[in-house]
């Protein structure tokens, strides 16, 4: 049951091969068996899941099910869930029970999906290894000494280990695609604004976007159909119709031209990753795509620009966590003056990486530095957007590696933030430009999964999904299951 894709599971439930309740119990049993080691879940909501599954079975029987009715999923613990703890991987929100559902949670719930629990993540989505979580690191199912990537590491590991057929994630600089690549699954970050941010705890508002972690592109299409769409509660959500992504997967791809940025293959890219990605590009050519060399000249500036813009927004977004209305309040805070109250609550409630980024963000926004850092970074951001816009005049999709290396060892980069940040060198550009992007499994390097990244123009999710789907029909990298989790 558990190794089925989401699409196959939907068919099985509809055919009555098994019930949602049986499947849900089975998944919960597997979470119980494996998650003590993996640590992919922060909260398992068994009781809630069983209720939803029973309701889904009634709905299927009544004949008014959607393709997602009865499908177990997991939400990254960044999405607010009514009555259920939403920690954002932080001590700050360890005691926070959201009074409302995020739009993503609401829409998937309305479609009949069954929430198994909330997945582990880097604290406030700040990290590329899932090691900054207050709830501890998540292990990579392919290698328990390696990280699963981050910040949506819990969702990635849970799907890779076949604990759940699909999970939600968020991607601010690569937080869906990078863990998908490192964990051997399919990750989709839609166009900025395609999915509502309402109820998603903000890291960097102009970059944050919710998306999916699944085994296949087809599964991503099914989830995105339900999640996407305009939401009047999010002023930045796009008021554009949502295509039937899953129906468009098999449409012909007339003359698809794939642009490959030469400079993505410069030094810094692991040889095994380069080989796997090149082989995948060759496979796409065999399927009829044309390959064209392009240059994204300013992409090397994406990491520095990102590490100004994202912390700037984060420093402001995280100001609300002050211990006044909710969240962590230090036992000693009430004995202090107002500044001491804030210092204790925030000093103890936030971890080191979050504190580092708040400091960077406050710094780049302060008088005398704003122009040199924040404004300059915004200009670079525009240059990077322009590079992509120019590229898309000549190509339909930009493709290359998702990450420079396969999964690295636990603790290997925690002492060197810059090395950690460089992990996102290929993914950040799509966030800065607001473009949709995917990572699909395309091989292995040193026994660990490698991801192929596909980036498209605004609102070209259907094209990306179709390309990935075509590739997955001709390959089986996405169907590989880590040893011990089959």
């Amino acid at each position, binding site marked *: 049951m558990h190794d089925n894709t989401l699409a196959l599971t939907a068919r099985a439930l509809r055919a009555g091969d098994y019930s949602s309740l049986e499947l849900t119990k089975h998944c919960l049993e597997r979470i119980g068996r494996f998650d003590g080691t993996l640590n992919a879940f922060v909260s398992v909501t068994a009781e809630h899941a069983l209720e939803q599954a029973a309701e889904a079975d009634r709905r299927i029987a009544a004949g008014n099910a959607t393709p997602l009715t009865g499908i177990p999923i997991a939400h990254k613990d960044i*999405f*607010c869930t009514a009555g259920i703890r*939403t920690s*954002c991987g932080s001590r700050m*929100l360890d005691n*926070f029970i*959201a*009074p*409302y559902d*995020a739009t993503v949670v609401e829409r998937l719930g309305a479609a009949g999906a069954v929430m198994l629990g909330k997945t582990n993540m880097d604290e406030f989505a700040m990290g590329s290894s899932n090691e900054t979580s207050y709830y501890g690191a998540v292990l990579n199912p392919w290698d328990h000494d390696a990280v699963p990537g981050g910040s949506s590491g819990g969702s990635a590991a849970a799907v890779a280990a076949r604990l759940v057929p699909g999970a939600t994630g968020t991607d601010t600089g690569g937080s869906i695609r990078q863990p998908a690549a490192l964990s051997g699954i399919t990750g989709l970050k839609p166009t900025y604004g395609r999915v509502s*941010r*309402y*109820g*998603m*705890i*903000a890291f*960097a*508002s*102009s970059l944050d976007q919710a998306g999916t972690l699944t085994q296949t592109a087809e599964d991503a299409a099914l989830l995105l159909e339900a999640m996407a769409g305009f939401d*009047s*509660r*999010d*002023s*930045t959500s796009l008021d554009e119709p949502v295509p039937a992504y899953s129906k468009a997967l098999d449409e012909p791809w007339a003359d698809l031209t794939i642009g490959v940025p030469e400079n993505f293959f410069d030094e810094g890219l692991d040889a095994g990753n380069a080989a796997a990605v090149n082989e995948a590009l060759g496979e796409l050519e065999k399927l009829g795509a044309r390959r064209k060399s392009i240059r994204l000249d300013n992409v090397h500036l994406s990491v520095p620009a990102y590490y100004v813009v994202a912390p*700037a*927004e984060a*420093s*402001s977004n*995280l*100001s*609300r*966590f*002050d211990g*006044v*209305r*909710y969240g962590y309040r230090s036992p000693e805070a*009430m004995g202090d003056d*107002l500044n001491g109250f*804030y210092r204790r609550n925030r000093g103890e409630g936030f971890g080191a990486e979050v504190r580092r980024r708040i400091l960077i963000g*406050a710094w780049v*926004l*302060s*008088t005398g530095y*704003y122009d040199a850092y*924040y404004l300059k970074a915004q200009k670079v951001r525009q240059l990077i957007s322009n590079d992509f816009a120019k590229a898309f005049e000549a190509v339909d999709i930009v493709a290359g590696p998702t990450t420079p290396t396969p999964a690295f060892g636990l603790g290997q980069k925690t002492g060197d933030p810059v090395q950690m940040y460089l992990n996102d060198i290929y993914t950040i550009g799509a966030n800065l430009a607001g473009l949709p992007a995917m990572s699909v499994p395309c091989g292995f390097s040193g026994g660990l999964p490698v991801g192929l990244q596909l980036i498209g123009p605004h609102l070209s999710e259907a094209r990306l999904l179709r390309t990935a789907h075509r590739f997955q029909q001709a390959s089986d990298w996405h169907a590989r299951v880590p040893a011990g989790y089959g």
Partner: protein
Amino acid sequence: MQFEAVIGLEIHTQLATESKIFSGAATRYGAEPNSQACLVDLGYPGVLPVLNREAVLMAIRFGLATHCRIAERSVFARKNYFYPDLPKGYQISQYELPIVHGGYIDVICDDEIKRIGITRAHLEEDAGKSLHEDFQGMSGIDLNRAGTPLLEIVSEPDMRSAAEAGAYMRTIHTLVRYLGISDGNMQEGSYRCDANVSIRPRGATELGTRTELKNLNSFRFVEKAIEIEIDRQIDIVEGGGKVVQETRLYDADRGETRSMRGKEEAEDYRYFPDPDLLPVSIDSALVEELRAALPELPADKRERFMSEYGLSAYDADILTASRPLADYYEDCVGHTQATAKLAANWVIGDLTAALNRAGLEIGESRIGASELGTLLDRIESGAISGKIAKEVFEAVWSGEGGVDEIIERRGLKQISDSASLEALVDEVIAANPAQVQQYRDGKTQVLGFFVGQVMKASQGRANPRQVNEILRAKLGG
């Protein structure tokens, strides 16, 4: 040395929207603490602001009424600082690109028209309230006010005296109420201001170092605080010292301003564009639509009252101070044959006095505009005297009935037929032979005595003009 003061005001006026500027919560004043604060106002994780279109329209209308340019594109920015009554840790405001800018308004001060530049007006959200009493040494937070829309109106440093600043603040106050964009209620904090004050030698063009006076919430306080501050600065300079740039607080009880924080303690607000909100785009069609729908503005109305009704500047000023008062006046004039001047006297005099005594607004008047018009008609036609009219007014005010009903029931109609009046005069002359003799001996001022006696005998109903004529004729004979 002669000094002149240079003053600029920042007025914060609360916009009269039903709901908050970025959430659907109500803005009613005086509700139970924290009963009008939704998750957005409370700054919960994951919630997002959604701009209230009504607030934008109000700001544009203000801009149009003050000859400002309406920005095609304006941007909301975050002003970052920590305070317990600021739930998000930042206030959403506008910084580099305000919604309207570059206008002016004409203000009348000491019978002279003075043009005051308006640098800009921008939209922002208000913070909540910290309550420092009744919590055993702790502070209570009420977030009902958090997210209430404010329009911050920043003037050029164009005022030269406390009186000009007061006149400007009153003029803007009248305007925002005319436009219906604010109730201007100063007790509830809906209209308050900060003043930037500096002095310089008369004739100098360079600006002196300024101080900022915070949170002046009445016209009187603004004038008083500025006067005190100007004197303080002059004392410093004359004593050979230098004015320090700082923020000062006005203490009305002690009649002084005192330092709140210095320039070096000024916070760095780390403004940046709010990524949760799209830039506000305003097309010219909307602007023209709003321009066409603007009401007659106070200055235009005042001019018209003077030319159309022949009123003095003084009367026109008072009658146009609020739109409901002006509307009442015009309604009354439209319902009477009496002169517009008589109507002005009654509205400004007896009616205003009655309203003040009862603590009522013009909209709550116990005598309607057309009813007052009827009363004026009865005076004009001579049916009742001005003095009797006051009695009738009081009776209508206390709910005894309509004007004609009361005149009829109380028998107040003026006695104008000569036969009845002559009979009354004869009685009075007969009863006062000594005074008759005095009059005839040339002491004509006793005429007043006779008029009084006749009026008394008629219970005030005798037509005084006729009584005079008859008395003169009879006494003279």
